[in-house]
């Protein structure tokens, strides 16, 4: 009898112990699973991921650079049917055909191949400029929110002033100083985006730093740098990441705008915005030269927007309808 009671008690204790020990792990696992399921059930978000994979594959496998690097030769087109710079001047502005699915541009270059290669510029600008803007902005917001006082005032007022200009005007202004070209454009868009990230990081830092665990860390002697890195950064990062995917969409659009105005990547490197710009001269005569690159921009930006919407729904269930 006693044995049985004992063993029963053991089981209860064991159960309780495992529950206590594993509970957070189980909860985290099930929470992740739930978040994942919410995301998978969000059909638009899945469509976004699918489109993004498509664009990524285009950018990576446009040519066989990953083989060419080892063989020490120039990369050959892989996914792209033609070399994006190869000119067929006899057939310039030829309409879409079986050989050239999206027609030829005014120099007789294959539009489809140029779109496939052009995805590299768009993705590069989108990802790198958001990385620059996100990291610098988040650091500024975190520093300001965490330290408070004068530092906070200066940082946030500067962010306010930078945000007083619409992003396109601000981008034009920075490019006027730096001059055009790919890397200046990445830097310009990064600078344009950083105040937005600073604001978000600032307001989430203000919320997080009031928590008891921050006070606890401070009371056991943790310095500012450690608290910011270990206790605050991990808690604000999710909001910054969600913002990032939406702002990549925005960055790609700003890049297209600037390329369209003529301040982007220098020719003849294919970029979607400048392809449209070239096409406008022959718009009524050969609309395909502008039409297809625009479609590529639309699809890519839409993909990032869909993904961003999906991520936001997951992290902020209040916004779900």
């Amino acid at each position, binding site marked *: 009898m006693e044995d049985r009671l004992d063993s029963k008690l053991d089981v209860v204790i064991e159960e309780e112990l495992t529950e206590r020990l594993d509970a957070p792990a189980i909860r985290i696992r099930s929470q992740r699973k739930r978040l994942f399921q919410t995301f998978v059930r969000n059909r638009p978000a899945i469509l976004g991921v699918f489109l993004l994979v498509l664009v990524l594959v285009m950018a990576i496998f446009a040519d066989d650079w990953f083989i060419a690097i080892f063989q020490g030769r120039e990369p050959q087109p892989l996914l792209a049917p033609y070399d994006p710079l190869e000119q067929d001047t006899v057939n310039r502005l030829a309409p879409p055909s079986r050989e050239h699915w999206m027609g030829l541009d005014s120099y007789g270059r294959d539009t489809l191949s140029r779109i496939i290669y052009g995805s590299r510029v768009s993705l590069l600008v989108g990802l790198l400029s958001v990385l620059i803007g996100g990291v610098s902005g988040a650091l500024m917001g975190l520093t300001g929110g965490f330290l408070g006082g004068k530092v906070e005032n200066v940082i946030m007022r500067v962010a306010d002033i930078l945000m*007083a*200009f619409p992003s396109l005007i601000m981008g034009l202004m920075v490019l006027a100083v730096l001059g055009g070209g790919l890397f200046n454009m990445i830097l310009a868009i990064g600078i344009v985006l950083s105040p937005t990230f600073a604001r978000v990081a600032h307001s989430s830092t203000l919320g997080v730093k009031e928590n008891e665990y921050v006070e606890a860390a401070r009371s056991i002697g943790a310095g500012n740098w450690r608290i910011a890195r270990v206790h605050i950064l991990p808690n604000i990062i999710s909001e910054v990441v969600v913002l990032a995917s939406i702002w990549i969409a925005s960055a790609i659009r700003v890049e297209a705008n600037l390329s369209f105005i003529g301040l982007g990547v220098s020719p003849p490197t294919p970029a979607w915005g400048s392809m449209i710009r070239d096409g406008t001269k022959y718009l009524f005569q050969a609309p395909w030269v502008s039409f297809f690159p625009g479609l590529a921009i639309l699809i890519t930006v839409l993909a990032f927007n869909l993904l961003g919407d999906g991520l936001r729904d997951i992290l902020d269930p209040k916004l779900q309808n």
Partner: protein
Amino acid sequence: MGKYILSRLLLAIPTVLAVLTLVFFVVRVIPGDPATAALGDYASQEAVEALREKMGLNEPLIVQYFNFLGDLVRGDLGASMITGKEISDLVKQVLPYTLELTITSIFIGTILGVPLGIYTARHVNTGVDYVGRVVSLAGLSVPAFYLGILIMLLLAHKIPIFPAVGGGNLKDFKSNIMHLVLPALTLGLIMTASVTRLTRSAMLNVLKDDYVRTARAKGLSERVVVLRHALRAALVPIVSIIGIWAASLVADSVLTETVFARPGLGKMLVSAIMQRDYTLLQSVMVIYALFVVGINLITDIAYSFVDPRITH
């Protein structure tokens, strides 16, 4: 109310000053000497030096800064470095085009976006709502210049109703309106997408509140419930998105003016950058900045009418 408006006006002054300062220094850090840029690379040293003196570039920076502010207060924008024309005259010529474009676009975006948002919120999770969501997200994703090109292809080429390019004659009402339709439609539709999305989510937030249920329980008609009780409460975010868009449309006019070859502030800005016309660039930037500050001010004041609690 008056006190609130006054305080907003006073608060706008430091913003304007900060923005003007930013523009001044940005133009000063652009690499290259403005005088050399104006005269070309082969100009003699004496000529460059004379122009530098005339442009006040030899003064200390702080003196230049206060001269810049003083000129602005007197409404003197100076002369274009490249063409030598008075900038205030140039601005007066193109400003009406940009203004009419921006105002018409805001009008289109509001008049379409708000009702569509209310409608989709009332029919949430139906086919209409789903289509509306996809279309508005697409509208947020399409670059303004691309939509402009598509609209131009459709309504100026396939079905040639409207002229494709140009700004029309400001004095001739019909020519002016005909040239305005396509660019205004372009910007208006993009704004519609965003306003629809926001109105929908603001309405959804409000429609499930208790007082809406109370209003329904009192037996008020659905029309009164939605338009008087719910919409009123959802109006603050709607006003703020319209304000944000107003500012951003001023910027997007750079693109539509390029696509439709319309005269305007945006086109002037682009050509100032391309030709490295520093004085023109500085003035156009200042005007843009004042625009944005002014729009923010109007938005702030509009808040106080929409939600009188804000004034306290």
